């Protein structure tokens, strides 16, 4: 069995994401979605509901009253907060343990994913994109392929380092040469296995692929730029560091410029720092 086949096997064995998360993604992918339908869907999974309500009622939100239902969460914290907490709770389960392959400390890959989700949402708002409701989810899922790839990297770390030292090369190219697959393609396979909506699958699979970014449209462009913003801030950067090609076409497609990137960074650093405890709490919620 070659390396690619071994990775494929691990990808196929990754437990499926809860169906309710996929349904939530499908609902909010429609810009005209019904809040009632969202609340009804979120309420169908009592375990998820309990976890989300615990986060809503944490001191971090500072609410003066107790939130008892997903409907109340929407009323007091907004639909996007409900969606983001529900998806984060479902996705965080895959980010336990160290990602030693990428030389990341415990929790770092999760932090990078959430930062990318937040950056996606901020860029979408600034670009007045119709993808605002799915932007966070796409960002938080964009590196799901790394979860499966991580275990194969340590044995090849020396070769990867040598490869990177030779010339400024995109890390996905190095992954493909050394391991036979890159983490974006791996993430696309996971997204297909989970039957995620097509725009989500494309954004995960193509977030490092400029020709596909042009073809896919805004969500993939948002994830590409948000990923670069998060890397730039050093959030959850491992052995791959910042070794990824930035595609300006993605920024142009969103109608944004360098100033927008700086302003998004300012907002992101403040929001990330303010919500750091909540981000880590969402991850620990999944451990129980």
């Amino acid at each position: 069995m070659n390396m690619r086949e071994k990775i494929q096997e691990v990808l196929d064995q990754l437990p499926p994401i809860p169906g309710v998360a996929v349904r939530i993604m499908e609902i909010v992918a429609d810009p005209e979605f019904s809040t009632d339908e969202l609340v009804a869907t979120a309420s169908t999974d009592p375990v998820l509901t309990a976890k989300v309500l615990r986060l809503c009622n944490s001191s971090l939100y500072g609410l003066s009253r107790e939130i008892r239902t997903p409907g109340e969460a929407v009323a007091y914290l907004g639909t996007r907060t409900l969606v983001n907490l529900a998806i984060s709770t479902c996705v965080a389960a895959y980010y336990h343990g160290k990602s030693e392959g990428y030389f990341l400390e415990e929790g770092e890959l999760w932090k990078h994913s959430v930062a990318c989700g937040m950056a996606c949402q901020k860029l979408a708002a600034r670009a007045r994109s119709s993808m605002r409701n799915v932007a966070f989810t796409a960002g938080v899922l964009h590196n799901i392929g790394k979860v499966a790839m991580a275990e194969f990297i340590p044995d090849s770390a020396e070769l990867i380092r040598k490869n990177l030292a030779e010339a400024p090369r995109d890390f996905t190219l190095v992954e493909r040469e050394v391991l036979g697959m890159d983490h974006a393609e791996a993430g696309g396979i996971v997204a297909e296995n989970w039957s995620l909506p097509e725009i989500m699958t494309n954004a995960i699979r193509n977030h490092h692929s400029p020709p596909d970014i042009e073809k896919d449209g805004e969500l993939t462009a948002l994830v590409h730029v948000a990923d670069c913003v998060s890397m730039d801030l050093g959030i959850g950067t491992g052995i791959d560091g910042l070794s990824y090609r930035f595609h300006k076409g993605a920024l142009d497609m969103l109608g944004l410029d360098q100033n927008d990137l700086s302003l998004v960074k300012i907002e992101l650093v403040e929001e990330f720092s303010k919500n750091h405890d909540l981000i880590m709490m969402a991850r620990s919620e999944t451990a129980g």
Partner: protein
Amino acid sequence: MAGSELSAAAGLRCGSELVVVDICSYKVLDEPGKVLASFALGSCVAVCLYDPEVKVAGMIHYMLPESKIDPGKAESNPAMFGDTGLPCLFQDFYAKGGKKRRLKCYLVGGASTIDCDGSFNVGRKNVLLARKLFWKSGINVEKEDTGGRISRSVFLSVDDGRVVVKSPGGGEQVL
């Protein structure tokens, strides 16, 4: 990361207490046994200052070069930007007894993604801003580890001014 995890080879004393300098902040210390640390710099820059005679150490971790993009933020948090944060760092450093004539200054960070047309070159701009300010003020940079595509963490010992730079999977080096 605990202080004891720092490699003895790097010369930072085991058991040293780490004082983290978060992104968009700065700190100046003169307490023995402490180590200033900034993690995962990415395109951000850390400037380290040290006066070996009075053992005063200072570090800033700034994110963007110029404050003109958001003067309000610069007012509330000058350490977010190089042009407003660096003067604050030096001011505190001198206030704690550090002297310019004995100053040892180090520059770390400023990495960038692979960017063919320069739209994402904040790392380079962050480094240039510091160099320009030092040149204008007649300050020599003792050593620097900047640019490239690696995210660095930097440690500065109050005891002896030793500066250690680490990167994921890339080991560590004493500057």
